[in-house]
């Protein structure tokens, strides 16, 4: 029983990070209708940059953390301006391929700069585990979940109350109407990419603190797909719920299915769920159904 709860806890932790990355993903999709296959590489970039700032330049963690977020935002803006802007109006497959190409470029550059070995964060959070009820939970986990929750709440508030957030929702809803109200769509696209890069970096730094950083972390970018599809591609609450469900599912399949298939089911189960969800509810739990006309 305790093993189950223990792995449920870690499932929720991983799930909350999925939720964070998925949030950035949904954000880009919602406001620019671009599906971003480079989300995992953005995550990797954040994780590596913060690590370098902390270990090589000996900057205190929190400072490094915020510096990384600023750098990530700039990277997001740059990517949008250089690569995505010329693609406005191109067919979906071209845009998908563009982000895949972008992912490849980023991965190559990250590999050249930081190499391929796993690097470990110095201890930022106290290593002593805390007991909640009967189970031991390491403090990194608690911080991660807390942090993810804070981010998710902040972003929800941002979209509800800030001018920029409302403008973004307006663009997502109807580009032409938004434009006629004086909203600059180009700027909104840039902001969307910047925020997505920031959120992915936060996810990267959190997961880096738990598992260490190496290039395989970018697989997170693919893992996010089941989460967003489950929740619906254009729904922020859906992304959060989807992330958590996929995280827990992975943990459970680790316990119950791995012994049957000699391990590795964690990688597939989310995708099997994805296929089933797509068959039953093609637009996910909370996604808007597209109605197409001739």
């Amino acid at each position, binding site marked *: 029983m305790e093993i189950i709860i223990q792995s449920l806890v870690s499932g929720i932790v991983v799930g909350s990070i999925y939720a964070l990355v998925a949030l950035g993903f949904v954000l880009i999709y919602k406001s620019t209708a671009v599906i971003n296959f480079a989300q995992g590489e953005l995550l990797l970039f954040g994780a590596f940059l913060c690590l370098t700032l902390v270990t090589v330049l000996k900057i205190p963690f929190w400072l490094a953390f915020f510096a990384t977020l600023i750098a990530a935002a700039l990277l997001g803006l740059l990517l949008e301006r250089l690569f995505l802007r010329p693609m406005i109006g191109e067919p979906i497959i071209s845009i998908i*391929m563009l982000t*895949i190409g972008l992912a490849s*470029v980023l991965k190559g550059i990250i*590999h050249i700069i930081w190499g391929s070995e796993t690097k470990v964060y110095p201890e930022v959070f106290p290593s002593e585990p805390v007991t909640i009820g009967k189970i031991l939970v390491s403090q990194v986990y608690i911080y991660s979940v807390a942090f993810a929750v804070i981010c998710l709440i902040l972003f929800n508030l941002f979209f509800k109350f800030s001018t920029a957030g409302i403008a973004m929702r307006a663009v997502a809803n109807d580009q032409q109407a938004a434009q006629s109200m004086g909203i600059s769509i180009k700027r909104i696209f840039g902001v969307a990419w910047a925020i997505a890069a920031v959120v992915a970096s936060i996810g990267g730094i959190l997961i880096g603190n738990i598992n260490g950083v190496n290039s395989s972390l970018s697989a997170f970018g*693919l893992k996010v797909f089941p989460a967003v599809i489950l929740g619906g591609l254009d729904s922020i609450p859906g992304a959060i719920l989807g992330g958590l469900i996929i995280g827990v599912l992975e943990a459970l399949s680790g316990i119950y299915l791995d012994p049957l298939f000699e391990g*590795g*089911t964690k990688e597939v189960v989310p995708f099997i769920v994805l296929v089933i969800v797509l068959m039953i509810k093609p637009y996910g739990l909370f996604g808007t159904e597209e109605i197409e*006309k001739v």
Partner: protein
Amino acid sequence: MAIKCGVFKTTYEDDMAIWQTKASKFWLWLFIISLFIFPFVFQNSKYLLYIANTVLIAVIATLGLNILTGFTGQISLGHGAFIGVGAYTSGYLMNTFHLPFLLCVLAGGFVTAFVGMIFGIPSLRLKGLYLAIATLAAQVILEFVFIRWRAVTGGNQGLLVEPAKILGYAFNSDFKFYFLALAFTILAVLIAKNIVRTKPGRAFMAIRDRYISAEIIGVPLFRYKLLSFGISSFFAGVAGSLWAHYIGIITPEHFNIMVSVQYLSMIIIGGLGSIYGSIMGATFMTLLPEVLRAISNLFANKFPMIVDLFGAIREGIFGLVIVLFLIFEPDGLAARWRTIKNYWKLWPFSY
């Protein structure tokens, strides 16, 4: 051989002809003949022949993906895995039941077509992005099967496959295999070309351009989408089967997500919805890493670290090529080739 400088067609048959002019027929035959002469010239270079064989096999698989994505407009991120299905089916059948090679290739093609059609079923309800992700799921699930179903696939250790053999003649060297691959490739190009200019091809293009209108003018969407998935996977299966019998040992890494991405990049760079484009794209993307390797070897003396970083550089340049093509030449090499040809058609009186 002069090139004609205008359109002088008087019948529909002329307009539909594969060879529009005598000149293009002549050049095509010259090209095919030179393809047959090529291995005799480079008989001693195993490396060149190896690359030529990979290109030929890649062309077959690319044609398949282009029929699905370029002509029918259904994005597939699972092509690499489908190639794997063909490779494993064919290899397993030959190893276990000792079936003749040609039968194995056919079986590989049909089994893959079947698997492809199963994963194509969601395409009735899914479009665009959702379909792309559904096929990504197909890729991940099939890859898992390749690794775990050890009894058939040999898992991570790989599966040893005997070389191709027709009527007792074994195609067991790069030189011999070249002719087999060339024959298959020419056949594949012919079949693909004829599919796209007959009824199913027209239906595919109608679905791609506007599926609701296509349905209204009487194209059964589900049947043709499934057919497209089937045909595309059949090509993938045949390519995989050839690859298995050529390379001799197949492991799951040969069919991972990167391979799928690579095939997508081939059709994008070659030109979506173009048979010539598939050929050019496959050739370009297969040659690119080899050219990069040659260049990095040149600099290896001066900058030794380039060898360690080669994987990363290759990955970065691969991505960069895709991105640059998408931004500056979205219609691919085929369109560029057409522009060049049109320029020379009327040269020097281009008004």
